[in-house]
């Protein structure tokens, strides 16, 4: 009985408390920088695509909304996706792709307003996904730290990478 009366009093006190409601279309709610919204593909600090088309995001995706195809660039040997397609009408914004990505290429943004009148418009191609910046990790460059040889960076020239060992010299 006492607890019931206390409940009535507590509820009454809420008359004078602030409302939690954010009147959304009139007023944007705050979405944290790490909010999981629309997916983007980011670029290296030097402006090249980060995505190396490893397919890990497509594998990690629980609803299979990511499709991509790997290809290699003739001039410098960098890997990149020939096409990269995300079907946002399937995407559940779980962020598994972002966690799976070894190159920080795929990232989720605080933008959640993804409504379209056509279902087809929900399928985003690479040109829709790619942005002109590095996203959340501005200094990270995958090719700068990776051990794979590309044009202009040989074995042992990556950041913190020891020069390759001449295994013939290791013979006793």
């Amino acid at each position, binding site marked *: 009985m006492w607890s019931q009366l206390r409940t009535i009093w507590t509820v009454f006190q809420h*008359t004078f*408390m*602030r*409302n939690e*409601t954010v009147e959304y279309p009139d007023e944007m709610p705050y979405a944290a920088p790490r909010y999981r919204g629309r997916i983007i593909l980011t670029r290296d600090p030097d402006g090249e695509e980060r995505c190396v088309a490893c397919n890990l995001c497509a594998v990690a995706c629980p609803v299979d909304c990511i499709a991509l195809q790997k290809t290699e660039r003739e001039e410098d040997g960098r890997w990149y996706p020939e096409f990269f397609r995300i079907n946002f009408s399937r995407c559940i914004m779980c962020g598994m792709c972002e966690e799976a990505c070894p190159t920080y290429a795929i990232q989720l943004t605080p933008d959640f307003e993804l409504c379209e009148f056509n279902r087809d418009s929900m399928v985003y191609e690479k040109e829709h996904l790619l942005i002109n910046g590095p996203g959340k990790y501005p200094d990270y460059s995958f090719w700068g730290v990776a051990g794979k040889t590309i044009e202009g960076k040989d074995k042992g020239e990556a950041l913190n990478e020891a020069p390759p060992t001449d295994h013939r010299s290791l013979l006793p």
Partner: protein
Amino acid sequence: MIVDWSYILILPVAVGALVFALVLVWWERRLLGWWQDRLGPNRVGPFGVLQALADAVKLFTKEDWLPPFGDRAFFIMAPAIVAGSMLMAYVIIPFGPDLYITDSNIAVLFFLAMSSLAVYGVLLAGLSSNNKYAMLGGLRAAAQMVTYEVFMGLSLMGVVIHAGSFSLVAIVESQQGMWYIFPQCVGFLIFFLAGLAESHRLPFDLPEAEHELTAGFHTEYSGMKFALIMAGEYLAMVLTSALVVTLFFGGWLAPTFLPGAEYIPPVVWFGLKTAVFIHLFVLLRAAIPRPRYDQLMSLGWKILLPLSLLNLLVTGAASLWLEH
């Protein structure tokens, strides 16, 4: 031909009560919103007042479905009984010193009779729907309302003993010296709880407990029939508040402990006091969980009924003692 001008009040009171019930739905939703730290309906018109109008338009234009498996005649009759009996009870309410439709010398009994009639509406609604949820709701309503009817009447007898009359106008006028809440606080508590149960508002809304019975006795109702049943519930809520004020809080009388209170017209005092109790009804809805059905029954029969009998006994004995 002598025209009794008080009959002119009938139309404004009937229309006013129905419109008030409609607006009350919106106001209740806003209140519940505030108490749950949200806003409630605030989109239609200023502060969302026109939500009531929008609801009315929606309910009028909705399909009015009659269940082919139900009992047509009673199914149609039931909402009319619910809303009609509650509207009839407004006849006896004194809104001001000369502002009442009729000053019957059996007004209290008339109110009890009308609130008992409303049980028929709810019961028939439940049974004629021929639906298991509706029947369970109807059964619950019948048992609950019969139970609470018993000591609703008994709790009022204390007031009647004090005033020496069944007429509500006489009861209000006899409260000039002291409101009956002071000698009759037990009666007030019992009457208030019984009124909650009679209007089957939360926390005593077991006949329509939506978590277990879908919508209880009005599961099959739609459109204006549903609206009439809801209107009956809100009318009952306002009626109970008005009666609590009339019987225990001095009706239209201005509170004497406030200086300058007599400059405010009596109708305003009546409205203000009634509004307080309407808000209390909504606050209880927002705060209190619904009891289990056996808890409701044992509260009624084992606590409130003996208490109201005891209250009647003590009040009667005391007034006899003071007279001799």
